[in-house]
């Protein structure tokens, strides 16, 4: 190969690299509609001051769904045991308060993230060699094993009766939690904002692109030499940490935790929310969790007995007419509108 050929290869390579970087930068660029969910969340604080206890629960589920989106939506890891990490986070905070008397909220959150990440790394390193049904069963088993361990040592975990009366020290030493949940709501919203910023960075990074590649065609990723297993374990660990933070917030806002946080229902519900909102779309977690929980709340007030019918109907309609979720529906509509407006 002579000098001019080498030169050509190098310039082609740098051009490709520049194109890729440009593509990523373009995708990562801030878009105005992205303000909308955050403005709505802040507006809710001022318009619905009586509903903040519920609001905080919704935001926690948004965070939990977001963590699932990272592994299910972007990396294509199908799991039915995501509650394991939610539960680990919840219990880290619970045990810190109940058994060690440690009540500072922010550092407890960090501890919960670390413990959940550790469990995520340990189980992920082993489980992510498998795919499909095997993986599904193994993730489910992980959550059940953690729950049963808690039940076995209910002298420590409090069992299904839980750890009651977990009072948390005032936030930053100033803001005391109140009955109306105002501080809770802003606290959860703040943490969600940080986490969302972090997740957005990840999915628009080269690492995020590699995950999408793994989801779309794992053989090809192997063929081009991408370290598939390592990337999957990395994203699984990150998602576990975020789920752990969501669980920790759940304990802090409820001042209570029971082994029910590991329930299959929890894993299933968060997946339903995400699918309802739209997977692999970042804001799908917002749309899904908010719509699901608000409707659940509305229907269950309307009819405490038959409200599940309403939710069921909604899910059937989603699967039939909006298989890509609510966001998919919106994207489709705006795409059609753009085409109509165009030449």
């Amino acid at each position: 190969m002579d000098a001019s050929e080498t030169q050509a290869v190098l310039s082609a390579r740098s051009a490709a690299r520049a194109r890729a970087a440009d593509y990523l930068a373009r995708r990562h660029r801030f878009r105005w509609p992205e303000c909308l969910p955050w403005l709505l969340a802040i507006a809710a604080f001022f318009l619905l001051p009586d509903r903040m206890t519920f609001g905080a629960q919704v935001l926690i589920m948004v965070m939990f769904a977001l963590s699932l989106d990272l592994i299910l939506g972007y990396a294509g890891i199908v799991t039915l045991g995501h509650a394991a990490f939610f539960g680990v986070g919840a219990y880290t905070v619970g045990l810190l308060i109940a058994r060690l008397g440690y009540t500072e909220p922010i550092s407890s959150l960090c501890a919960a993230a670390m413990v959940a990440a550790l469990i995520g790394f340990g189980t992920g390193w082993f489980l992510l060699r498998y795919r499909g049904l095997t993986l599904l069963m193994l993730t489910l088993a992980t959550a059940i094993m953690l729950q049963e361990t808690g039940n076995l040592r209910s002298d420590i975990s409090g069992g299904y009766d839980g750890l009651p009366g977990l009072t948390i020290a005032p936030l930053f030493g100033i803001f005391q939690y109140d009955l109306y949940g105002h501080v809770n709501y802003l606290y959860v919203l703040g943490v969600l904002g940080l986490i969302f910023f972090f997740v957005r960075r990840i999915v628009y990074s080269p690492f995020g692109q590699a995950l999408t590649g793994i989801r779309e065609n794992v053989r090809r990723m192997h063929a081009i030499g991408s370290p598939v297993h390592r990337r999957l374990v990395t994203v699984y660990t990150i998602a576990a940490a975020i789920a752990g933070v969501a669980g920790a917030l759940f304990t802090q806002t409820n001042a209570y935790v029971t082994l029910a946080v590991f329930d299959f229902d929890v894993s299933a519900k968060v997946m339903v929310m995400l699918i309802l909102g739209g997977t692999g779309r970042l804001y799908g977690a917002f749309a899904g969790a908010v719509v699901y929980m608000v409707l659940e709340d509305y229907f269950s007030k309307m009819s405490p007995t038959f409200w599940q019918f309403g939710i069921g109907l909604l899910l059937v309609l989603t699967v039939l007419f909006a298989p890509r979720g609510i966001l998919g529906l919106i994207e489709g509509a705006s795409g059609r509108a753009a085409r109509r407006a165009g030449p």
Partner: protein
Amino acid sequence: MHLLRWLGMAAVALAMGGYAHAATVKIGVVLPYSGANADLGHQIDKAFDLYVKLHANDIAPHKVEIIKRDEGPPTGAQAKTVTTELITNDKVQVVTGFVFSPSAIALAPVITQAKVPMIIANAGTAWITNLSPYIVRLSFSMWHPAYPMGAYAYDKIGCKTVAMAYTDFPPGKDSTEAFRTGYEKAGGKIVDSIPMGSPVQVPDFTPFFQKIKDEHPDCMYVFIPSGAHAAGVMKAYGELGMRKAGIKLIGPMDLIPDNKLQDMGEAAIGTIVMGHYARDLDNPQNKAFVAEWHKAYGPDSYPDFMSAAGWDTMHAIFDTIKKLNGDLSDGAKVVDALKGWSTNGPRGHVMIDPATRDIVQDEHAMEVYRQPDGKLGERVLGTVKAVKDECKVLKVGRCAS
């Protein structure tokens, strides 16, 4: 003209004065209305509705407004959210219901802060009432039937040795712990204690019971959640021929739920349970209660121990409204009014212990037998009068604080 206007204004003022006096008491009812546990919620809900329907005039001129919300699964989270909103949004003066202990436990700090009384119509974990001075329990603790059963089994049934088997969740652990405490105090010997899995699904009880059969105790004490589990227990117990092997089946009343009894067949006959309610219970209040129930909900619907507690719960709330003349705005006064409250209800004589705010009630040892008409029934063998929650009396474990 002036006089007329003056009279009119006076009339309006009077009417308004009268209106202000006739209070509307807002009651928040939190029960599981949906999902797998909706049955439990409905047993209490029907009792609430029936009481309110039949006794609405007792509290005249005051009225009650009942706001129902779904308690959700036994995690405490949903119950906490909806109850907090009942208090902060709907401004209810009393919250009641609560089938699951985690709901009540999760809510304790909320009601303490809000100073709104919580009147528990079911949740049975013993130490709940210690969590807040605003908690009053009208139902039972797991210790109510299980602890007196200990001494009764040793003295009256003749169980010199007992093997225990239980569903591995808090009520199961509490019930066996309470039985063990009472039984060992009386002089008995526990030979085994076998956990039988989670309450979520009904296991095949055969391997657990076979182990007990091999150990040859005089009696086996079984705790399972009422409902489908109970039928499974009877099936395994009958198929293994354990009664013929000389092992008597005993337990709390959950072992023979009223609505499952007829399906249990021959194996159930001779089973002895301890409980505070059975629909055959022979007292005039219960006769009237069951008759009204059938009239309202048809001949195929039966009240059970949860309904009986629900009835007494609403009765206690109504009596409090009368006593405080409709003004339930001060939670502490409501709780004070309930301390020492007593009545003759479907369960017989019940009272609220002023010291613990928990129920004091009679416990009956009941045996399953075949009635002359061929159906299965329960007959009372003996009664332990005025049973308190011994967990708190003896300060066992979490009941101490």
